[in-house]
């Protein structure tokens, strides 16, 4: 496992590339992805929390700076947020590596609905791995994309509790929620 972080020295945000690499290695172990090599590219000019991944060797993760940010102290690093953001991105990579998500669009091409469904699936699994997760946040995101109805909440729970889903199964649940 090799982890490279760019830039090596940050000029705008107060992040440490070695600390980020350490967090990434910890997450790779936690997710059973020790053989995956990573290039983490942090765009420190942008205050958004978007994370996009590309399946390649090394796996490329483009991170906008707020994904690693302590929102209580802007421009400073949060280990919890870094773990959580990397965890979501790495789970998408693991899903793609499994072959069960071969028909999923690239991260760049995911619609807001598809993105919400996959995020729900990833965050549900991260919560079972012991990461601190605020479930209501993700439920609200799911409702925003599927509607504010009891039937939608049931589909959310189905995804949240699931493991081993395929992209077509996820898409089907999403379609049920939208119906």
């Amino acid at each position, binding site marked *: 496992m090799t982890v490279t972080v760019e*830039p090596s020295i940050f*000029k*705008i*945000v107060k992040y440490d590339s070695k600390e980020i690499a350490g967090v990434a290695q910890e997450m790779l172990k936690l997710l059973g992805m020790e053989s995956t090599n990573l290039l983490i590219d942090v*765009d*420190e*000019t*942008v*205050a*958004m*929390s*978007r994370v996009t991944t590309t399946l390649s060797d090394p796996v490329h993760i483009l991170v*906008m*700076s707020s994904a690693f940010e302590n*929102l*209580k*102290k*802007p*421009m400073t690093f949060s280990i919890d947020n870094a773990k959580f953001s990397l965890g979501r991105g790495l789970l998408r990579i693991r899903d793609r590596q499994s072959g069960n998500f071969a028909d999923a669009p690239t991260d*760049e091409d995911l619609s*807001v609905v598809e*993105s919400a469904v996959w995020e729900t699936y990833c965050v549900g699994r991260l919560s079972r791995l012991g990461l601190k997760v*605020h*479930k*209501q*946040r*993700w*439920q*609200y*995101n799911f*409702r*925003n*994309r599927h*509607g*504010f109805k009891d039937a939608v909440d049931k589909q959310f729970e189905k995804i949240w509790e699931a493991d081993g889903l395929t992209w077509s199964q996820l898409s089907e649940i999403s379609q049920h929620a939208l119906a």
Partner: protein
Amino acid sequence: MRKFFPVEDLARDERFNQATNEERMADPRGTSNTGVIRKARSTNRLTPLRPDATDAARSLMHGIMVGEIQALEGAGRTCFDFVTGEEAPFALKLDMARQCWDEARHVEISVKLSEWMGTELGQFIENTVLFAAACSQDPVLRLAGVNRALEGLAIDVFTTMKEFGELAGDPYLAFCEDWMLADEVTHVKMGSVWLRKITENDPERRKKALEFQSVVDKIFSYGGLRSESDESPILLARRFRELAGFSDGELTEIADVSLAALNERREAVEKTLASSPA
């Protein structure tokens, strides 16, 4: 009890972290429709279509919640800081007391909405700029800065959030924002009425107050947070502002000030992008 309470001494529990507006504006990173962000968003206007809409709405809702706390503190101070009759009429204080009642209700509503949206109290930094505008020694300047500039911004914000709730189909958000919006229109109107009444025979004081309002309007534009451009998350709500007593001329001035703030911010972000490695 102490009078003229400084912004640094606002009481908060350990969940909250505060920053001044200067500290917030020192962050050179882009949040507007430039460079890489342009690829992620088709518009900066806060609508459910934006990929980051849920988190942006949560962050704005938290900003509203802490803003309501500060508005309550500011109106409360105006009730107490000035001598009744000599420095501030009793009826003005009565209006401020009514505003305290409204703001306290808004705090409770905003806390519940934040929890509904999945936000923990104190999760985001609290910008203390609102209370800073309520620290003036002249009640007329407070009315101009807080009731007209700040509560005017609240009209824009609540209108945007109400529309967001309607588009997303969130019944609680749309309903609550609509009710709070009605109160904000009243607060701005109170500011407009008292500003004119108190300075009726004092054009110099009125001029000073309107200048202060203009400065606060620019500060509250947060480098383009609110304007009539699609590049701003919050749209200037002309209709509700008219109802609150703003004239066409005043609205045009606010629109111009907001656009200037947006342009300044855009230039600063472009500079940051240009100086960073490719």
